[in-house]
């Protein structure tokens, strides 16, 4: 991951946008397979990528989408069984498998986003283009735990007095509402004070600096243009119709000429970049030979 942590945040952002938009809208197994593979490989190598529960959830979701699709579309040529008089076709099942894979790939790349663009980088990006949005985001992320702590404090106090631990859920919801109301008063009052304090410290004056600055260097430009060139060749393949595939009545892939192959290869490289940067240290450990 260190390649992307050290780069200007625009580089991973651009990479993610290219991968995601193509994976979401190209609707071709030639795009979906590398996207899914890249995300799975990356999430398997980094810490906190997958949990057992999430894997089971993802696989169940995939199976459900694949199995349900033939119930809605009956376009295929090879019926497997008949459900309520309607054919359950092989092509529709395979379409469902592809659809599920595409959804899964997109969801997994959204998971990767958290790891590729850490919070600090995200604020830097937002702060440049939308300073108020950045301020709102960072203050909300600070307020949410604070509000939870205040709510717990009030609930504890009320429980100690003995008016809160009602087994009846209507009363419990009612006391939650009371807590919420009190929480609102407390927090709004506090917000106005915070606003006054910010103003007193010069919020909104020109010449503001950020905690971390990322200079856009030559290396960043090289990375960015490499990503753009790879994306462009994938888009070219898409625009020429080389990625097209029709599922009904029979599954027919468009003829793959050289440009299509180049486009698919370029997209595969894009998808593998996070994985490769994650195992860079391992690769160096295996292949680096001492020159002493």
């Amino acid at each position, binding site marked *: 991951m260190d390649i992307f942590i050290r780069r200007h945040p625009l580089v991973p952002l651009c990479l993610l946008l290219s991968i995601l938009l193509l994976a979401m809208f*190209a609707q071709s197994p030639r795009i979906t397979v590398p996207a899914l593979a890249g995300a799975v490989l990356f999430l398997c190598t980094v810490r906190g990528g997958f949990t057992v529960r999430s894997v089971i959830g993802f696989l169940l979701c995939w199976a459900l989408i694949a199995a349900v699709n033939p119930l*809605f579309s009956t376009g295929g040529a090879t019926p497997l069984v008949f459900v309520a008089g309607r054919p359950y076709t092989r092509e529709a099942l395979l379409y469902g498998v592809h659809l599920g894979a595409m959804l899964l790939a997109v969801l997994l790349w959204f998971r990767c986003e958290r790891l590729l663009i850490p919070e600090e980088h995200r604020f830097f990006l937002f702060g440049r283009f*939308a300073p108020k949005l950045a301020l*709102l985001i960072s203050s909300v992320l600070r307020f949410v735990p604070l509000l939870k702590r205040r*709510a717990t404090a009030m609930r504890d106090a009320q429980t100690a007095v003995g008016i809160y631990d009602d087994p009846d859920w209507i009363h419990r919801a009612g006391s939650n509402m009371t807590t919420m109301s009190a929480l609102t008063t407390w927090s709004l009052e506090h917000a106005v004070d915070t606003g006054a304090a910010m*103003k007193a410290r010069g919020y909104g004056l020109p010449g503001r600096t950020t905690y971390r600055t990322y200079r856009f260097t030559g290396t960043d430009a090289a990375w960015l243009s490499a990503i753009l060139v790879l994306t462009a060749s994938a888009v070219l393949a898409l625009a020429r119709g080389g990625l097209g595939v029709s599922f009904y009545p029979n599954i027919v892939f468009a003829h793959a000429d050289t440009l299509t192959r180049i486009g698919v290869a370029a997209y595969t490289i894009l998808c593998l970049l996070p994985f490769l940067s994650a195992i860079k240290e391992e690769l160096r450990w295996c292949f680096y030979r001492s020159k002493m």
Partner: protein
Amino acid sequence: MNRRLLTRICFFVMIPIVVFGGALLFREQHYAWITLCIAVLTCLPIWYDFERRETGSAELMVLSVLTSLSVAGRFLFAWLPGFKPVTAITVITAMWLGAEPGFIVGSLTALLSNFYFGQGPWTPFQMFSWGLLGGLAGLLAKPLRKHKILLCLYGIFAGFFYSLVMDLWSTFWMGEGFSIPRYVALITAALPITLEYAISNVIFLLVLAGPIGEKLDRLRVRYGLFREHQ
């Protein structure tokens, strides 16, 4: 470069290119692409206007507290799934502070609560629907404040609107254009959750509108916040 010129180029040149170019490029999925563009492009001008306008630091902090309340509300009522105060707080904000703050709180809640509950392709649509529900409530502020029954109806409408928008996007994204049986199936599958949304919206609106509205009104009167939004 002149900032205003850049913005104009962005709005009048880049956006049409993105929408139509994308629709031509993603032939199979152009419904989904255009829907996504609409969701993003509805939010963009409002957020842009908000960025450009003078907003005091106290007003920003009030907006972020209201957003945090609705995000935290999802945790506070986590023991009743689907029962959440997000729409209610958005609507109440819009009723007392105006349409734009309502839009901001609604769309920001979607963006931020998904940092905890998981980002996905649904984020722009949640931002769009919650934002729009807030903006609309801001425009209807006077009648909504006066008549409890209208507030209830708005809560029910909000629950259904939210579900229908999300299902519309799912239908488009699953390809094969707009398939009515698929849309109907998705709506039917989501019906219990939709009803729960509608009911929880009504309950939260009825219970919270009075107390929170009073507090927001006090902010306006005592500190003079959000004067130009009314």
